[in-house]
């Protein structure tokens, strides 16, 4: 039964002489492949050549500092609570006198660890953070680790370096 008028009966006629001797079609096809032979290649040679993954890519974690170079994190623990993989742990400490240039507020994280084997790079820590302290960088991936002793990233690897500040697209 015909359900719609969209169906088309395909009339497949006898092959013409040119089609039957194959050669014209083969030569045409060879022209196509030769065109591709000289066209630009789409391959990205990965380790040497990296593709831009966009401003929303969630890569390596970073603990931001403010403009004066003081850490923004106050060890409130919201990121650890938000983390579905329970990858974040921290130890809070009180800021001493004379450490104002190091930590922005009176409380700070003396230890801040992310277990990169547990982390699923969901970005919920970033969303949970009330102090804009933790971010997942859009242009840097966590390197491959060769041993379990390398998977826990402490503050030495996470805190932003002042000479190499992280800036996301759209930020000032």
């Amino acid at each position: 039964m015909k359900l719609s008028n969209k169906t088309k009966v395909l009339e497949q006629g006898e092959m013409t002489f040119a089609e039957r001797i194959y050669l014209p079609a083969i030569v045409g096809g060879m022209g196509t492949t030769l065109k591709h032979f000289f066209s630009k290649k789409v391959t990205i040679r990965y380790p040497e050549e990296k593709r831009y993954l966009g401003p929303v890519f969630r890569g390596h974690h970073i603990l931001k500092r403010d403009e004066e170079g003081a850490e923004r994190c106050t060890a409130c623990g919201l990121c650890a609570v938000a983390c579905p993989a329970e990858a974040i742990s921290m130890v809070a400490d009180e800021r001493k006198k004379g450490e104002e240039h190091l930590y922005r507020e009176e409380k700070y994280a003396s230890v801040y660890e992310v277990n990169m084997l547990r982390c699923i790079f969901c970005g919920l820590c970033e969303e949970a953070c009330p102090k804009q302290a933790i971010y997942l960088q859009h242009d840097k991936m966590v390197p491959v680790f060769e041993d379990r002793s390398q998977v826990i990233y402490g503050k030495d690897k996470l805190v932003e370096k002042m000479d190499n500040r992280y800036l996301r697209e759209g930020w000032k």
Partner: protein
Amino acid sequence: MEITSTLFTAKAIYVGAIFAVTLGVATYSTYFERIVAAFMQDRVGPDRAGPFGIFQPLADAVKMFMKEDFIPAQSDKWLFIAGPCLSMLTALMTSAVVPFGDTLDLGNGLMLDLQGIDVNIGILWVFGIVSLGVYGVLIGGWASNNKFALIGAIRAASQNISYELAMGLSIIAILMLSGSLSTKNIVEVQQNGHWNILYQPLGFVIFIVCAFAECNRTPFDLPECETELIGGYHTEYSSMKLGFYLFSEYINMFISGAVMATLYFGGYDYPGHDFIVGKFGNNIAVLLGVGAVIGKALVFVFIFMWVRWTIPRFRYDQLMGLGWTGLIPLAMFNVVLTGAVMLFTVNEGGSNWITVAGSWAGVAIMLVFMAFYSQAQYKKKKLATA
């Protein structure tokens, strides 16, 4: 005695060099096959091993040697081993009669013929060895004790036999033109630009199609058709035995390219030969001629790869239909056409352009006739069904 031994040494060096060139080209064909495939698919291909991946064949060879050399328990062990050896042997033997160059003057009146051996039935030697080549496949497929391997082997055998007929018939026209079976003579007749391709356009098309079939290359690679037969005749093979089969295929490609250069593209003839002789001497010109043969053969190897990555394979009945009902009648027509053109131009005193024009006109007339004929058949069929 002194002279013969020097000549013997020179010949031995030549044979060793041809052997090395053949194997080297075959080795690098595996790499270029992948590069060509990749380029035609907008990729870059293997580029990890060394600069541009030029050590890839080495890595492949190491892989091949390191793999387990497996022989199935129910197989015929000796035939299983003999198969790939036979394939490799016959593939390498063909190059003996291909003239890779003219005569090289070694000084002291020593003349080295740059050809393995100039037998007066050279082209028959090529045919004989190529026909033997199918035994390697057949024995390997039979000894595997695997139905897919056997089917692949049977396909290879019947395909090779079918296409040898058309190939032989297309050669007959060449023999008529040159009047000799010796590959050396065939090349000498073609010197100074009188390449056979000018006189034999149809014969060349038939020959190259048959060469594809004889080498078991796409679009005629049905003996190793993965979609139907797993791996075809080399399903059960692993390690370097499989490597031998693949290798002999690439050697066959190179040699059939060299044979096509010999038969249709003037062998070691190249434009500007006399100029080179005048300026740099005969030996340089001869060595450039060797380069010309190898260059022409490599162009054919590229065409083999180009076709492989362009068109899909034929169905088996299409393959047989093309061979028996297409190419053999065409080859017979080509023989008649060549004879007719030779007969009509016999009084012209060797005016070559008339011969060339006659050959091409004959093919054009045949095509027009066939087109009209098929049109008429089509109309008749249409009337019958309407």
